């Protein structure tokens, strides 16, 4: 097991370097003026050149890349062009906000997805299975920013039950675990949970159906085990897959919630990326993408290791 973890860790190093290179290229090779957000359109040529050399944009790409990588490995992702604050601070604050939302949404998705998936897999082709299938198809196919807006209209604009947008009450600095803050999370979390619910329930249904079709289920019944015990066996067989899918969904939600975070003005990485893209804030964009990628890769690593721990069938040698 130790050897497996070490090999898996070593494997992430080239992945991280590759990701760093790809996001560097994406950001630098795309057209547009990197200084558009800080320089007025009528700035003098001298000022412009001074700014360009200050940010190092005049150096060869290779030098720029290795400089950036060298600094990044020490936790220095440069400064945001738009705000002048260190990128790492901006990204970490946003990442924590996103993570909080993503974890809640994934947990919701896991609970409902597993519930629907198990029931649908156990009672295949019953009405309850068909209902669960319809719900999960709805979940993965409905545009979730649209769903977010609908929820805002119903629960915020019409019923006044919950706040429409924002990451906390005005005037509050930082997150607190109280109702005043939590109520801001509810609508975005529900909106975000719809996709993981759909995907997890499809996966769990398939795994449960596949497990139930295996011969050992007859074997268990032939040992006189009751339905509850058989169910326990099915859960233990299906759990590694369900948890792996859940982990990946958490990763997607961390970076993939740009639209939802924008709809709800949730101060997370999605909103940050959105801002960075529109302001062509290259250090911020590059830094946030890299941090998100880092997060995704580590999450994958955790999922793999966790799965290997849970599932004795996975070769660990």
């Amino acid at each position, binding site marked *: 097991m130790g050897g497996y973890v070490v090999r898996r860790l070593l494997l992430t190093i080239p992945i991280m370097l590759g990701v760093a290179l790809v996001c560097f290229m994406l950001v630098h090779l795309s057209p547009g003026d990197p200084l558009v957000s800080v320089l007025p359109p009528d700035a003098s040529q001298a000022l412009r050149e001074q700014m360009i050399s200050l940010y190092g944009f005049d150096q060869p790409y290779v030098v720029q890349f290795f400089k950036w990588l060298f600094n990044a490995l020490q936790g220095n992702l440069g400064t945001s062009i738009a705000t002048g604050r260190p990128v790492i601070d901006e990204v970490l604050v946003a990442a924590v906000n996103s993570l909080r939302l993503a974890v809640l949404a994934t947990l919701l998705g896991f609970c409902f997805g597993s519930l629907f998936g198990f029931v649908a897999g156990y009672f295949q082709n019953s009405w309850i299975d068909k209902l669960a299938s319809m719900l999960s198809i709805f979940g993965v196919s409905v545009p979730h920013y649209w769903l977010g807006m609908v929820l805002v209209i119903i629960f915020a604009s019409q019923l006044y039950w919950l706040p429409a947008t924002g990451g906390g009450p005005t005037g509050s600095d930082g997150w607190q675990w109280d109702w005043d803050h939590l109520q801001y999370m509810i609508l975005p979390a529900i909106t975000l949970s719809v996709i993981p619910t759909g995907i997890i329930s499809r996966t769990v249904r398939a795994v449960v159906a596949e497990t139930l079709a295996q*011969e050992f289920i007859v074997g268990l019944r032939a040992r*006189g*085990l009751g339905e509850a015990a058989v169910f326990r066996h099915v859960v233990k067989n299906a759990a590694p897959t369900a948890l792996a899918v859940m982990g990946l969904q958490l990763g997607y939600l961390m970076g993939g919630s740009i639209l939802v975070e924008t709809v709800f003005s949730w101060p997370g990485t999605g909103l940050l990326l959105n801002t960075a893209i529109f302001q062509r804030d290259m250090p911020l964009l590059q830094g946030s993408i890299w941090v998100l990628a880092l997060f995704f890769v580590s999450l994958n690593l955790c999922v793999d290791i966790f799965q290997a721990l849970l599932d004795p069938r996975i070769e660990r040698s």
Partner: protein
Amino acid sequence: MSDLQPAAMVETRGLKVRFEQAGKRIEAVNGVDLSVSRGEALALIGESGSGKSVTLRALMRLHPERSTRIEGQIEIEGRELMAMSRGELSRLRGGEVAMIFQEPLLALDPVYTVGQQIVEGLRRHRGLSRSEARARALEALKSVRIPSPESRLDAYPHEMSGGMRQRAMIALALSCHPKLLLADEPTTALDATVQIQILILLRELRRELGLALIFVTHDIAAAAEVADRVAVMYGGRIVEMAPVRELLRAPRHPYTIALLASRPDGGLAKGKRLETIPGSPPDLAALPPGCAFAPRCRHAMAICSSQLPPSERIDSEHLVACHWAMGRSDADPYTQPRQEERMDR
């Protein structure tokens, strides 16, 4: 069934099993009468698809209830199986009647260790504490002569060899001390040498424990190793039943005769099937009104395709279901060319 004459370990009368599948009705078992007394071993042999496994699973009511129709009577020690409640059934399964399967890798839960699975059964049926159950599980593994049983307790099924797994499966089945063991081709998936070891183990355990056994196989040599009596199945019916020696010495049904003739000398190699009888097994969704073997039978007569041959006694222990074997001979001229055509192939 009086008290003076104790009930058989298991007895079926007119057992029929039908599956409803995609609008088709598959008649897998079509009137099986068999009886196994305490401590006796019966082998069920026949080609693949002849209904051996379906018969065996019916004896524990293991078929999916929604898509299966079971008719006739099944009695386990005089108790009607089809009338049992869920609770009675689950006490019976594993506690009084146990089953072992052809491929233990598929029949054991892959994410539980062998020890956990034995312990689970012992706790269910014998109400033991976890540590008592573990001690008993170890005993069970020892009793099937598994090398280093302590370490096998914590091994997962996929970490063992095929023969070892089958031993573990047998240990699991026998851990709760059942009175009847149903074995569904337990040696078919194994190498020849391991096959023999498992057969010897089963024979020894049966003697030690006074276990009744129904042993399904398509290998008549394996049947001869462990069984007292043999029942030959074809198209979901028992076409001949006799003590092993009698059957090997004087088979009467044309199918049994062909089966014995097709037997390779020196035992069966791994995975080898008895497919040397020309023609194919009957379509269980469209069985003929007469003898199901008629299209492949060299002695078929007109009466064979119109009248089902009843099961008849040749002597006190030898039953056969065949018009020809019973000496009926109303050969019809125009069934002959059809048969010769078949034999030419």
